[in-house]
C-alpha cells in the first residue's frame, strides 16, 4: 500500500544516473518524494516542512560520492538527518541519588501506559533495581487490577492505596520507602490533552510525587495528532522522555519524528510486542530505516546472535557454500531461525529485498508444514533426497498430513534454492561483498528485478 522512499526514488533516479551533481530542479523533485514518503509515514505536516527544508539545504550542491548513486546519496542524507533528529541527546533515565527514584507515565487513552509500566518495571528489575508499581489509574474500570496481574507476572509489588489519584501516587512513594524499593513507576489514567480538568489532575500528581522522569507514552500508529498531544503534555508536566509503543505492527511510526521534533525530548524506550519482555531501548537509526521503509540490519544482527549457535551456523554456511547443505541442516537451521520471529519480519529487515518479496503475505503455518514434511523423511532421505521415489513420496505425504504435490514442490524448490545459495555464498566469501543487493545467482524473473539501494554500510 505504501511505497518506501527507496522505491519512490527508483523512477526519478534512473534518469539521473551518471550525473555527477544534483541540480536544484532534481532536488526539488526529490524533495517532493521525500515529503510524500514522510507524510505517508504519518510525520506531522509541519514537521515534514521543516525537515524537507533541511534536507534540501544539505543536498543542494552536495557532491555525489563516487561509491554512491545519486539515489543512495540522497537517501543517505535523509537517513542521517532522520537519525540526527530522532537521536540527539542520549535518552537515559535519571536515577535519584536519594531513592526512591520516581518515574511518571502519562498519555492518551489506549496508548499502552499500563503495559509499558509493567514492561519498564521488568526492564529495570533486570538492571538490578527494586521497583514498585503504583496504580493511579482510577478512571478505567479494572485498570489497577490489570496492573496487579502484570506486576505479579514480572515479580514486582503493586501499590494502589487511596481513592483519588494524587493521594494514591503520594502513598505510593511512602509505600516504596517502607518496602525499601528504590524505583517507583506511577501509572496514570489515560487523558485527552484538551481535558483541562484531567490535565490539572496530572499536574497535581506531578507536584505530589516530584518525578525524576516524566515519560509520555505514545502509540506508534498515531497520526498527525501526535504533535498536539506531545505539546500539551510537555507543557503540563515537563516531559523528560518518550516511550513509543506498538512498534511491532507495520506502522511506519512517523509519530516518533513528530514527537521528538516538537518536544526535543529523547525517545527512550520502544514497546515491540505483546510479551512483557518485548521492550527495549530506542534506536534512532533503526527507526530512521523504518520510517524510510529500509532494511534493519542491526536488529537482524541482534536477533541472529540471540537465536543462532555461531559454530553450528559456521558449519552450515560452509555446507551451503560447498553444496552439501542437506534437508537435515535445513530443518535444524529453520528451527533456530523461527526463534527469531516471523520469517516475514526477518526478510523485511534485509536491505535490498524488492518490495514484491517484502510485502509477500507469509503464513507461518507453511513453515510448520515444511517442518512436518522433512520430519516424515528418514535420515537417509534427508541426506540424499534423490532416493525419494513414488512410494516414499506417498509415505512422506501421509506421514506429514500433506499431499505428494507438496512433497514434490518442496524437494524441487529446495534443490533450486540451494543451487542459488551455493553461488551467492561463494561470491560473499570471496569478495566480502556488502549486502546491498540481491544474491547475483537469484533468478531475476522470480524476484522482479534488482534490489533497491542498500542499507547502511556494514562495519
Amino acid at each position, binding site marked *: 500500500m505504501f511505497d518506501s522512499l527507496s522505491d519512490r526514488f527508483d523512477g526519478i533516479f534512473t534518469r539521473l544516473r551518471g550525473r555527477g551533481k544534483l541540480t536544484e530542479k532534481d532536488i526539488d523533485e526529490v524533495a517532493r518524494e521525500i515529503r*510524500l514518503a514522510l507524510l505517508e509515514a504519518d510525520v506531522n505536516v509541519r514537521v515534514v516542512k521543516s525537515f524537507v527544508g533541511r534536507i534540501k539545504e544539505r543536498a543542494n550542491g552536495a557532491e555525489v560520492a563516487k561509491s554512491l548513486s545519486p539515489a543512495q546519496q540522497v537517501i543517505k542524507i535523509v537517513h542521517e538527518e532522520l537519525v540526527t533528529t530522532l537521536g540527539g541527546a542520549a535518552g537515559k533515565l535519571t536515577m535519584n541519588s536519594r531513592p526512591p527514584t520516581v518515574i511518571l507515565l502519562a498519555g492518551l487513552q*489506549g496508548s499502552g501506559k499500563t503495559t509499558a509500566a509493567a514492561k519498564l518495571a521488568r526492564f529495570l528489575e533486570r538492571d538490578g533495581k527494586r521497583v514498585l508499581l503504583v496504580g493511579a489509574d482510577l478512571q478505567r474500570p479494572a485498570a489497577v487490577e490489570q496492573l496487579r496481574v502484570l506486576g505479579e507476572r514480572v515479580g514486582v509489588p503493586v501499590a494502589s492505596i487511596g481513592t483519588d489519584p494524587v493521594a494514591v501516587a503520594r502513598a505510593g512513594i511512602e509505600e516504596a520507602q517502607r518496602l525499601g524499593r528504590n524505583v517507583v513507576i506511577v501509572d496514570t489514567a489515560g487523558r485527552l490533552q484538551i481535558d483541562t480538568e484531567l490535565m490539572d489532575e496530572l499536574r497535581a500528581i506531578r507536584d505530589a510525587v516530584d518525578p525524576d522522569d516524566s515519560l509520555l507514552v505514545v502509540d506508534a500508529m498515531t*497520526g498527525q*495528532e501526535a504533535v498536539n498531544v506531545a505539546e500539551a503534555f510537555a507543557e503540563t508536566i515537563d516531559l523528560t522522555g518518550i516511550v513509543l509503543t506498538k512498534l511491532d505492527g507495520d506502522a511506519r511510526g*512517523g509519530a516518533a519524528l513528530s514527537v521528538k521534533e516538537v518536544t526535543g525530548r529523547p525517545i527512550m524506550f520502544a514497546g515491540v510486542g505483546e510479551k512483557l519482555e518485548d521492550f527495549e531501548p530506542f534506536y534512532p537509526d533503526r527507526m530512521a530505516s523504518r520510517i524510510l521503509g529500509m532494511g534493519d540490519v542491526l536488529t537482524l544482527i541482534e536477533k541472529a546472535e540471540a537465536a543462532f549457535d*555461531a559454530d553450528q551456523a559456521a558449519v552450515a554456511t560452509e555446507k551451503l557454500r560447498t553444496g552439501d547443505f542437506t534437508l537435515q541442516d535445513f530443518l535444524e537451521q529453520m528451527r533456530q531461525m523461527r526463534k527469531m520471529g516471523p*520469517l516475514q519480519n526477518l526478510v523485511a529487515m534485509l536491505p535490498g529485498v524488492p518490495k514484491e518479496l517484502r510485502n509477500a*503475505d507469509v*503464513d507461518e503455518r507453511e*513453515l510448520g508444514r515444511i517442518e512436518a514434511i522433512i520430519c516424515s523423511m528418514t535420515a537417509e532421505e534427508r541426506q540424499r533426497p534423490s532416493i525419494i521415489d513414488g512410494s516414499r513420496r506417498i509415505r512422506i505425504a501421509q506421514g506429514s498430513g500433506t499431499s505428494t504435490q507438496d512433497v514434490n514442490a518442496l524437494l524441487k524448490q529446495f534443490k533450486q534454492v540451494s543451487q542459488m545459495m551455493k553461488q551467492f555464498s561463494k561470491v560473499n566469501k570471496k569478495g566480502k561483498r556488502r549486502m546491498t543487493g540481491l544474491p547475483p545467482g537469484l533468478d531475476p524473473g522470480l524476484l522482479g528485478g534488482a534490489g533497491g539501494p542498500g542499507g547502511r554500510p556494514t562495519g
Partner: protein
Amino acid sequence: MSDTLALVVFVAIFALAAFLIVLPRFVRNREAKRATAATRAPAPPRPVAPPRPVAPPRPTSETGAPPAPVGEAPVEEAPAEEVPAEPVRLRDRIGKTRASFAGLLGALRRGGKIDDESWDELEEALLLADVGMTTTEAVVEGVKARAAATGADAEALPALLRDEITERLECTATDRSLHHALDGPTVWLMVGVNGVGKTTTSAKLAKRELADGRRVLLAAADTFRAAAADQLAMWADRLGCAVVRGQDGGDPGAVVFDAMDAAIARDTDLVIVDTAGRLHTKVNLMNELEKLKRIIERRPGALQEVLLVLDASTGQNGLVQAREFAGAVDITGVVLTKLDGTAKGGVVLAIEDEFGVPVKLVGLGEGADDLIPFDPAEFAAALVE
C-alpha cells in the same frame, strides 16, 4: 566483528533461502483465497446520486416511546430517545478545539481570489486531519471542480470542502445502521488493534441497546489482556446486563461458544463479543479471530455486525488495519472512537473511499452515553471548521 558478519550473512542467506522455498506455497494459497473472496464479495459499485440518509425520527417524549420490536427496528431509531440533542454534541465537544484549525483555514476566510496558496492550505488542512495523500488529492480535485463551477472566491472554500466531503461519505454508504437478526439472538463482534477502545465501546453499545429494551449479553472474549474481563464485568455490573467470561489466558473460542449457548438458553436478544486487541500483522491472532467468527456462524444469521474499532488519532496505518481486518473477518462497519479530542479521524475518509466500509458510530468519551451514530454532514463540518 567478522564472526558476527559471517553469522549475519548466513542468516540472511538462510532466511532468503527458506523464504524462497516457502514462497510458491504462499502465493498459491493466497491466490486460492483471493479467488474465493472474489466470488464471495464483489466490490459494491458507487451509486451516482444516492439519497441523503433519512434523519432519525425524534420522539418528543422521553419515556413514552415503547421499546422497539426486536428484529424490525434498526438502531437508527434508538438513540433519539435517550439523547435528544445529539447532533449538537459532536459539534460541542469538538468546538473546544476549533481555534487551531480555524487558524489554518483562516487565510481562506480572508477571502479574495483563489490562488495556489489557497489550494496548498486546503491540502495541508486535510493532511493535518489524517486524511492521507491519496484521498486528499482526490478531495482537492473535487473542490476545484466545485469552485470552477460556481466561480467562488476563497471565502467559499471551506463550505465547498464540507460539501465535497459530505457527498463523498454519502456516496460510499447509505446504510449506517446496526442490524439485528430477524429471529433469535443477534451477535455483534468487536475487533481492532490494541488500545482503541473495544471494551469501552462494547459497554456503551450494551447501554444503548438495553435502553431500547433488548436483553443484552456481553461476552468477554479478551482473555489475553490482564483484567480485560474484569473491566467488562464491571461495566456489565454498572449497566445491569449479563456477562459471560472465561479464564484469563483461556480459549476465547470457548467464551464465544458459551456465550452463544447462554444467549439461546436465556432468550437473549443481543450478544456483544469483546475481543482482545490484536495487531493486524500477527497472523496467528488474525487466524484466531477468523475462528471466533466461524464459531458464531455456526448459528446462521446470528452474526449481523463485525465492527472495526478505530482510534481517531490513528494515522495512515488505519487503512492497513481496515484492509487486514476486512480480509480476515469481513468487517461490516467502523466505530471511530475518541473523537472528543483534537484528532479528526480523517483516515476514515480514506477507508470509506478505498474499501467502502461505512463508519457507523462515533465515540466521544469515557462515559457510557458517549456513543452516537455517525453523520456524514456533522463529521465533514467538524473536519473543516
